[in-house]
């Protein structure tokens, strides 16, 4: 009997926990606190933090990083073998297949598309320029990450944090640098949650009081036909020019077409709610599961977190500066505050433009104007991801 008791005691997780796992458990508790108490992107931060908790429980065997190392090793018999994962993996390994195959980010994009109104962008196509300018953060960070010793593929994955688009970051990182998926996903979602803290000082620094008070002309009405043709047109053009961007742009526009055409309401509602919610749970849990002690607690993670904020700040600043430049050449003045919404983070970044604008002029309503660059940023970051995938993949 004593032997049985000793055997049970030896099998307890407490007997096997190392310092790295203990640290990761504390970090997961902290992230759970941020998600629940502070409500920082709780829909994703909560499953990510819980995935992190589960993967760092010794003996639970829910995620096996060694299986995924073998999956990527050409000399291993399990190289690119999903069968080996299904045979030997735990629950989180099976869920992670969806990330590895790039399925979850695309499914989330269907839901994002079904919830997005591209009307402000169609009404003011110049917004696309602001969405493009905000992607400069991605490429500057790519340069910085190379200088800090990351490989080109890893640098591309780190740079995409500047796009402030969680699914795009996960999609690109799972293809270019899967070993960095945990830190990059956490950095991307943390900074997206911190948009109201990060962006306003940059916006105020780069603009004058008069510029912040500029009132913009009301946007024209957009017909239903335009809204229906837009997703078909954009998918065709972008996918023909940049085929690697097709999965993300295609899924985004499919969701939007389902919303706008008005004949598949059930599908649109499913994409917006059930599908999106189910995939968010799977994605969050499996991304959190990759944050094991050995892969997370190192200097690389700290550098990724620092570069992520640089990417984000550069992107926000790039959009504001281009809006100022456009004002030099354009007859109709643009409020430069809407430029910072060119980083995706829909709709948080647009709301921040509205709030900062109203601080200067309470009668100024910038929200709909900022939604144009905001949704252009989603397209821009998906295009940037496609370019990086083509050049570095």
């Amino acid at each position, binding site marked *: 009997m004593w032997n049985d008791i000793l055997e049970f005691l030896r099998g307890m997780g407490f007997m096997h926990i190392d310092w790295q796992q203990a640290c990761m458990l504390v970090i997961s508790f902290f992230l759970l606190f941020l998600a629940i108490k502070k409500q920082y992107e709780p829909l994703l931060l909560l499953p990510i933090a819980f995935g992190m908790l589960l993967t760092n429980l010794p003996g639970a065997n829910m995620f096996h990083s060694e299986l995924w190392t073998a999956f990527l090793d050409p000399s291993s018999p399990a190289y690119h073998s999903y069968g080996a994962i299904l045979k030997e993996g735990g629950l989180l390994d099976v869920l992670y297949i969806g990330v590895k195959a790039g399925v979850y980010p695309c499914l989330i994009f269907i839901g994002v598309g079904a919830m997005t109104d591209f009307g402000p*962008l*169609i009404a003011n*196509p*110049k917004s*696309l*320029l602001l*969405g*493009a*300018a905000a*992607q*400069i953060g991605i*490429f*500057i960070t*790519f*340069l910085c990450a*190379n*200088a*800090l*010793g990351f490989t*080109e593929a890893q*640098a*591309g994955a780190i740079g995409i944090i500047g796009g402030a688009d969680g699914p795009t970051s996960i999609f690109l990182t799972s293809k270019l640098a899967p070993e960095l998926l945990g830190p990059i996903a956490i950095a991307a979602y943390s900074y997206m949650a911190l948009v109201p803290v990060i962006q306003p000082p940059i916006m105020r620094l780069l603009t004058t009081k008069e510029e912040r008070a500029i009132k913009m002309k009301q946007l024209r009405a957009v*017909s239903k*036909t*335009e809204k229906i*043709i*837009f997703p078909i*047109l*954009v998918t065709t*053009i*972008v996918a023909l*020019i*940049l085929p690697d961007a097709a999965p993300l742009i295609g899924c985004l526009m499919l969701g939007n077409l389902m919303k706008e055409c008005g004949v598949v309401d059930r599908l649109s509602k499913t994409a917006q709610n059930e599908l999106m919610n189910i995939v968010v749970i799977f994605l969050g849990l499996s991304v959190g599961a990759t944050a094991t002690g050995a892969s997370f607690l190192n200097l690389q993670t700290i550098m990724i977190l620092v570069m992520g904020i640089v990417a984000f700040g550069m992107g926000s600043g790039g959009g504001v500066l281009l809006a100022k430049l456009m004002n030099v050449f354009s007859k109709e003045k643009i409020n430069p505050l809407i430029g910072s919404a060119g980083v995706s983070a829909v709709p948080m970044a647009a709301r921040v433009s509205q709030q900062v604008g109203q601080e200067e002029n309470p009668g100024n309503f910038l929200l709909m104007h900022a939604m144009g660059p905001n949704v*252009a940023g989603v*397209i*821009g970051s998906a*295009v*940037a991801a496609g*370019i*990086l995938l083509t*050049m*570095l993949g």
Partner: protein
Amino acid sequence: MILLAVNWPHVWMVTLLGFAIVLILLVVLIYVLKLFGFIMRPRVKVENPHEVHEAVGAPRKQTSEKITLTGNATAAIAMALHLYYNGVHDEEPTQVTIKKVERKYSPWNSKLYGMNNLHRS
């Protein structure tokens, strides 16, 4: 040492070319959307009311291609359409659903135990 190990020409090429492609692609989309907006623009031209006022009494211009409407006429048409689409009731849904109403037996609605069913001696 790290800086020397980096393939800088390729890194610069990816940076500059990558950003340039993002810009070019989105500029192409701007022009496509502008063209698209031009094609899809509303065909009805709303005439300036001041011009209409000036033109009273003068022979009306022959505009065979453009329909000119004043704000009042537009409002009247909008109201007529609104009344038509909200008031019209000559199209019924063709779907006929017959729901079989089945009442299960219960002593509470039974005739047998009803108050009117008095015992007669």
